[in-house]
């Protein structure tokens, strides 16, 4: 019964989406207020209906209603409650339902909080959201119905992949989708602007908060996924350039570019048609990502069960959505007129450089991800494009970007002084060089690339701090003066500082953990000790245990350093009988500067156990840095400009003795 209610709600939502996707657009074209006003209640009602549907599916999972095919395939009565709930979105149909729920959530939010927008733009943006909803609700209803019934009803479900019964991974999809799907707002605004035929600086101001929210959530989503891989997969790896990882990474990079180019549109009234294109591209990448995961065209550990029929359906949605929006762009964008002008060496110029490099980086990941597919399609054979390719191409593109990131904010708008900016960064350069020297001195392998990576991180961190210090005239004015300036700075300024620093922390974490990981693989008998990077790991032995739906073996290690106890690590090996799968839970102890990491394997015949011990320097900084970036995004989001909304037109100020405007 509940499932039928959910199904019905979904059907109603789809019909409502059709209304939302057509009527307001017609109304905006004709300037018809009542038609446009329909958008707001339609969007809000649509969200409520989809929430009902989502609630119905969640209920079915919680009570283990195996008469619903989706629940039977993906759940099991023995699963803990938390994972029954998170299992709702750990499969194709349920995750698509989450997808449209978040799409509707953003639509409803725009409907409720978009009071400051011009009515036509508001109506058009909501209309486009509605159209996207139509496409995906149709996809759900016609090819991925989560509410399909199953007869005869099985006694129990087929369980869930044990890998997914994990808190980190359970919350990775919601954040990811808030990001992915959140970029639909920028897309809707872009299409609305193209339909209007104009892009005001104010348009950028309205788009920014939505893009910031989406990008921040995506940062957390990607970080959660990587963090999960790190502690779950058993050898300390956290990024594999897997196609599905890339599918979430591309919108992140392009989204960062969009955030920055929209600043230029807002402040300088230029780069408009590029920013509109970028907004379309970012969401298109989200759609492409959705397609790649579910269509089966790429081999990936992440892919959902593949079904070519669904793949073709999504491809059709992509062709209509992306093809349609890019066609609209080709037709309307030439009419967008920019007014700002600036010299190449200026803050605008730096942001253009930022966009150039980020776009090339996105394109690189895109080419690497899709190349095997395209080559195979044209009969060129099968190849693999793995981490070595991306490391060789992506890193050289990001390096100049990071270098420029410290300089850009130091440049003035319209016309900047590069030498002056560099002069103000002397301290950052000094710090970077010092770090290079220190790193090479400490590193026995004299890894020059790693030293440069640490130097880049230092350059960016110190440079960003110097920029903030310069703004508040720290050291050049009395301290109280500086503090006063600091209190008066817009939150967006702090947002930038925090986010850039977060990025620097991530770079340091990535560099150190890649270059200086210490690994030790051996058999150990209880009582034996191994030294890894200065830490002594004494193996205490293996005990048996069991959980709600698995049996396990626990291997314990007492870790000391120079005789002083540091931690006790308990690594676990689980066996899930229903799935006949084995997983390892690594034991991790973080010192915040590094991670001690232990994994237990199988026993050998002579009483020893296969053991892997790691020392991962600065790995925690990767997750911390991501959180800091998230905090930066939220800080910018809380800037009062976004809450106040678009300024009203001021009365023109009469200039003394002014002549009429030049004819």
């Amino acid at each position: 019964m509940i499932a039928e209610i959910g199904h019905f709600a979904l059907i109603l939502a789809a019909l409502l989406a059709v209304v939302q996707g057509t009527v307001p657009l017609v109304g905006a074209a004709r300037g018809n207020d009542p038609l446009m006003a329909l958008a707001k209640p339609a969007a809000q009602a649509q969200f409520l209906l989809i929430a009902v549907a989502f609630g119905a599916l969640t209920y079915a999972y919680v009570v283990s209603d195996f008469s619903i095919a989706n629940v039977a395939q993906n759940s099991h009565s023995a699963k803990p409650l938390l994972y029954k709930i998170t299992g709702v979105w750990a499969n194709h149909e349920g995750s698509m339902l989450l997808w449209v729920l978040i799409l509707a959530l953003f639509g409803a939010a725009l409907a409720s909080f978009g009071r400051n927008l011009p009515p036509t733009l508001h109506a058009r943006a909501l209309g486009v959201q509605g159209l996207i909803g139509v496409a995906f609700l149709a996809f759900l209803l016609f090819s991925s119905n989560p509410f399909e019934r199953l007869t005869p009803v099985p006694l129990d479900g087929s369980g869930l992949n044990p890998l997914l019964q994990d808190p980190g991974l359970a919350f990775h999809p919601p954040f990811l989708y808030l990001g992915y799907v959140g970029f639909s707002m920028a897309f809707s605004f872009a299409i609305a602007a193209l339909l209007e035929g104009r892009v005001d600086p104010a348009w950028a101001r309205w788009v920014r908060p939505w893009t910031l929210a989406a990008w921040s959530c995506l940062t957390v989503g990607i970080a959660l996924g990587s963090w999960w891989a790190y502690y779950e997969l058993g050898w300390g790896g956290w990024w594999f350039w897997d196609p599905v990882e890339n599918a979430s990474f591309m919108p992140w990079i392009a989204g960062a570019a969009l955030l920055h180019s929209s600043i230029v549109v807002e402040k300088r009234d230029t780069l408009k048609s590029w920013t509109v294109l970028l907004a379309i591209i970012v969401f298109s990448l989200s759609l492409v990502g959705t397609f790649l995961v579910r269509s089966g065209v790429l081999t990936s550990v992440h892919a959902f069960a593949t079904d070519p029929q669904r793949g073709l359906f999504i491809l059709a949605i992509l062709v209509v959505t992306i093809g349609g929006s890019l066609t609209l762009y080709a037709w309307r964008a030439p009419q967008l007129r920019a007014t700002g002008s600036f010299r190449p060496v200026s803050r605008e110029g730096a942001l253009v450089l930022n966009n150039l490099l980020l776009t090339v980086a996105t394109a690189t990941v895109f080419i690497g991800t899709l190349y095997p597919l395209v080559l195979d399609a044209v009969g060129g054979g099968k190849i693999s494009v793995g981490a070595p390719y991306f490391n060789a191409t992506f890193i050289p593109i990001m390096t100049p970007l990071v270098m420029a990131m410290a300089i850009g904010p130091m440049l003035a708008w319209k016309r900047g002084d590069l030498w002056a900016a560099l002069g103000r960064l002397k301290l950052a350069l000094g710090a970077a060089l010092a770090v290079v020297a220190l790193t090479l001195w400490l590193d026995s392998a004299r890894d020059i690339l790693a030293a440069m990576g640490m130097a880049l991180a230092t350059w960016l961190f110190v440079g960003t701090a110097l920029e903030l210090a310069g703004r508040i005239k720290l050291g050049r004015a009395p301290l109280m003066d500086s503090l006063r300036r600091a209190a008066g700075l817009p939150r967006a300024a702090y947002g930038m500082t925090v986010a850039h620093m977060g990025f620097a922390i991530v770079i340091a974490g990535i560099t150190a953990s890649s270059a200086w990981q210490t690994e030790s693989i051996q058999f150990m008998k209880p009582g034996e000790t191994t030294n890894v990077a200065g830490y002594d790991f004494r193996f205490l032995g293996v005990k048996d245990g069991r959980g709600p739906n698995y049996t396990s073996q626990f291997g314990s290690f007492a870790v000391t350093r120079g005789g002083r106890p540091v931690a006790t690590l308990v690594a676990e090996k689980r066996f899930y009988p229903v799935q006949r799968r084995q997983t390892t839970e690594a034991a991790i102890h973080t010192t915040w500067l590094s991670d001690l990491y232990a994994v237990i394997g199988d026993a050998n015949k002579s009483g020893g156990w296969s053991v892997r011990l790691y020392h991962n320097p600065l790995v925690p900084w990767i997750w911390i840095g991501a959180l800091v970036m998230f905090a930066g995004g939220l800080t910018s989001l809380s800037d009062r400009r976004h809450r106040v909304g678009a300024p009203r037109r001021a009365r023109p100020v009469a200039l003394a003795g002014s002549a009429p405007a030049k004819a």
Partner: protein
Amino acid sequence: MSDMSDTATTRGRPSRILFVLPVLLFGVLAAVIAYFMLTGRDPRLLPSTLIDKPAPEFSLPPIAGWQGRKPGLATADLKGKVTVVNFFASWCVPCLAEHPQVMALSKIKGIQVVGINHKDRPAAAKEWLTRHGNPYARIGADAGRAAIEWGVYGMPETFILDKTGRIRFKHVGVIRPETLKHKLLPIIRDLQK
């Protein structure tokens, strides 16, 4: 406001072509992907690098404890007749699915069907063959290395060799009745000429 700097913006505006470029590029990409999907290409199937090359050098013992069997399987055994080499195992569920087709192959006159038992327990393999039928003229027990030599990455896989012992065709996955009829039999007939 836009009037004043019109002269700046209209002078040498980017040509219309640039605006059309994104949709064109997307169209090409979508067409390629659609083609890929519609022709049913499976991204997981690897083409063999060994086609038209002589069979790899190998020598495998028979399944341990199997009585009344000829001694194992080696490269020399693959010459003289058209040969079907089938990788199988008792733990491999799809192998059971294709077993009727392999039995049918073994009944064709003038060719030989040989099996490579991959990473199996001798007792289990023997039981499996006894229960379901043994289509193989000879069997070699492989601990893993032979599979690598043949470029095998999944189970089951089947190779067709010509009379000189050259590999002429590889089939990955289950041999379905249609595959047998429309693909394998014509090739075998061709090679027998």
